[in-house]
């Protein structure tokens, strides 16, 4: 195949090295023009995210290309060779294809199933096209990778379910209330954690935020941030009845919310469901609150447990994704194999002969009245015309096979004569 992939990711390289590489990339926008100067590279894709730096290339000489690319990465990172060398991995042909598919499908990500990576691969491909660094093979390969990523996303549950504590809180809120539109959230304590959870909730439709904090100024500041309402601690009891979702994150040593407070609030709000999230340590909300009907209480450990469960679930789904990728790597190889000259020539001949036979069968009435011999003559005539027409392209193709350019000719012929669609 002559496809290689060289690079490093969060599993092989420590963050100091990764950041060194990505910083140097930001400086000179894209290193693509630089990489393309390497002689044995025909097509190049350069992918750089905060967790990985990778070069995917179609090459004429594998050994030479790998050596030059290693050198290039060393110079880019400005780091000692032996340190960097240990972090690099190299994949060839099918393995390179598989790796690309895994990356695009987010199987190789730090948080498996996170969606950003596909966008980053798409950006890298756009750059590659803009710099004229893509050709027939990489175009096909990248589009194939996007398709694989989509298949993995829709056919497996790899991207389902929250894998962070604040997303888990949102997911639970949705399981309780259904729609979060028009719901009110009460933040008790104006810390960073509660702010993060509140932001997720607002992104998912929560309408109103009330912030209660011991120091009123902090409450005002955070409330302004969400266009919410600040409140002092002394009004907590009254505020509680307005809240559908309550997030506790104060540094208080004892319980801020007691069972009695919740019972009163629940009665006043006519038993509408309440969801309490206690992310404070030590806890803010009396665990007995969870025993009240129509009230759901989750503390930080419960949320973490949900997250762990979800991660395990994703791991299971990942196996299905690997199966899909195996299958797609085979598909890509099959396509790649059609780019050999011999099968293409055969397919072209078959197609033309098929057309001739078809037309003869549908021949007008007068031809049917001809003697067998005369009809034979006509058939010979037609096929010799066809052979003459095909002669030049076919010899041309055979000659090109000696050189590297053949693949694009073959691909062009397959496309112009629709040889691949024929099979389907």
């Amino acid at each position: 195949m002559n496809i290689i992939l060289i690079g490093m990711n969060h599993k092989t390289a420590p963050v100091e090295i990764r950041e060194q590489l990505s910083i140097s990339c930001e400086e000179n926008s894209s290193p693509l023009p630089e990489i393309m100067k390497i002689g044995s590279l025909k097509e190049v894709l350069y992918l750089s995210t905060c967790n990985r730096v990778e070069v995917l290339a179609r090459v004429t000489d594998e050994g030479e290309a790998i050596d030059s690319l290693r050198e290039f990465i060393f110079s880019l990172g400005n780091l000692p060779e032996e340190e960097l060398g240990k972090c690099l991995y190299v994949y060839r042909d099918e393995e390179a294809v598989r790796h690309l598919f895994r990356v695009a499908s987010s199987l190789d990500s730090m948080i498996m199933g996170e969606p950003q990576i596909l966008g980053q691969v798409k950006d890298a491909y756009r750059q590659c096209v803009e710099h004229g660094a893509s050709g027939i093979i990489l175009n096909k390969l990248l589009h194939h990778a996007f398709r694989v990523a989509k298949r993995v996303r829709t056919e497996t549950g790899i991207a389902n379910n929250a894998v962070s504590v604040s997303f888990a809180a949102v997911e639970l809120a949705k399981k309780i209330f259904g729609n979060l539109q028009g719901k009110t959230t009460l933040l008790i304590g104006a810390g960073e954690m509660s702010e993060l959870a509140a932001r997720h909730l607002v992104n998912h439709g929560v309408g109103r935020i009330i912030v209660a904090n011991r120091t009123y100024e902090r409450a005002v500041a955070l409330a302004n941030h969400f266009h919410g309402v600040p409140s002092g601690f002394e009004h907590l009891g009254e505020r509680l009845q307005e809240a559908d979702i309550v997030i506790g994150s104060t540094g208080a040593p004892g319980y801020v919310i007691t069972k009695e407070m919740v019972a009163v609030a629940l009665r006043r709000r006519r038993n509408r469901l309440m969801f309490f999230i206690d992310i404070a340590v030590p806890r803010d909300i009396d665990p007995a609150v969870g025993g009240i009907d129509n009230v759901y209480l989750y503390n930080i450990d419960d949320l973490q447990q949900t997250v762990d469960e979800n991660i395990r679930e994703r791991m299971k789904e990942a196996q299905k994704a690997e199966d899909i990728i195996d299958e797609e790597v085979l598909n890509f190889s099959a396509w790649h194999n059609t780019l050999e000259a011999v099968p293409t020539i055969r397919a072209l001949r078959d197609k033309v002969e098929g057309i001739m036979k078809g037309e003869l069968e549908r021949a007008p009435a007068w031809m049917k009245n001809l003697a067998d011999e005369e009809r034979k003559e006509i058939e010979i005539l037609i096929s010799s015309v066809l052979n003459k027409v095909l002669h030049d392209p076919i010899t041309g193709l055979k000659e090109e096979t000696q050189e590297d350019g053949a693949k694009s000719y073959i691909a062009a012929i397959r496309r112009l004569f629709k040889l691949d669609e024929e099979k389907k």
Partner: protein
Amino acid sequence: MMDILFFKIALALYLLSTAGYILSLLVRRVQVAKISTWILFSAFLVQGISMVFRYVRMGHTPVIVMHDSLSFFVWAMTGTYLAFQLKTKTRVLGAFVSPVAFFIMMVASVGLGGDVALPEMLKGWLVPFHAVLSIAGEALFALACCAGAMYLIQDGFLKHRRLTAFSRLLPPLGDLDRISHVSLLWGFPLLTLGAIAGALWARTVWGSHWSWDPKQIWTLMAWLFYALVLHQRLAIGWSGRKAALLSIAALFLLLAALIGVNVFFTSAHRFFV
């Protein structure tokens, strides 16, 4: 006898959608439930066609014989569920509704084909009016019960902080409670009007609105119980777990009135032997 043919097709479709919903629970995919919803919808349509054919052939609204009333019950319940389905993301609730629909259709199919001539006293417009309203009300109550049962399951999962793949599949509590609430809210006036129509008719044939018939007494008890459930919901704001429990209990009382009385008591409300 096109009505029988279409009834059989509908029965098969209910079986298919039930299997689909159960499969969706097993493989834990909402996608499968989506397909099952469409099958359920087609079952609803086919059954509707069957009822139209039956109306044309029999010449009266087909809700009076046991077979017809059960069939209409299923049709009303399925239709209401599908309407809710448009508004909320509660596809998986079908996993409760569809088997109930299929089971009752099976029971209804026992009376298939054996057409009984309508007694003279049951002719006239009041009887189908009474039957349609009462059965529609009961179908809504059955739906409230299904939603309530699913609510209790989901409540158990969320209360004990066990968010499994299964509980993820179940609809949100808020949606289930709303379905229960709206079903009760509409079912109650339907049943009430149905009972009034029945009482008016009773006056014309038995000479009195109320004759202390076991069927009447049980239905009145169920009606009072539903009035209580609705009162607790609307006036006191009972919702969620308690309300779900009540709507399940109320349906059992109603079922006792509908089926139990026919089996264990002699009732003037039995017109066919």
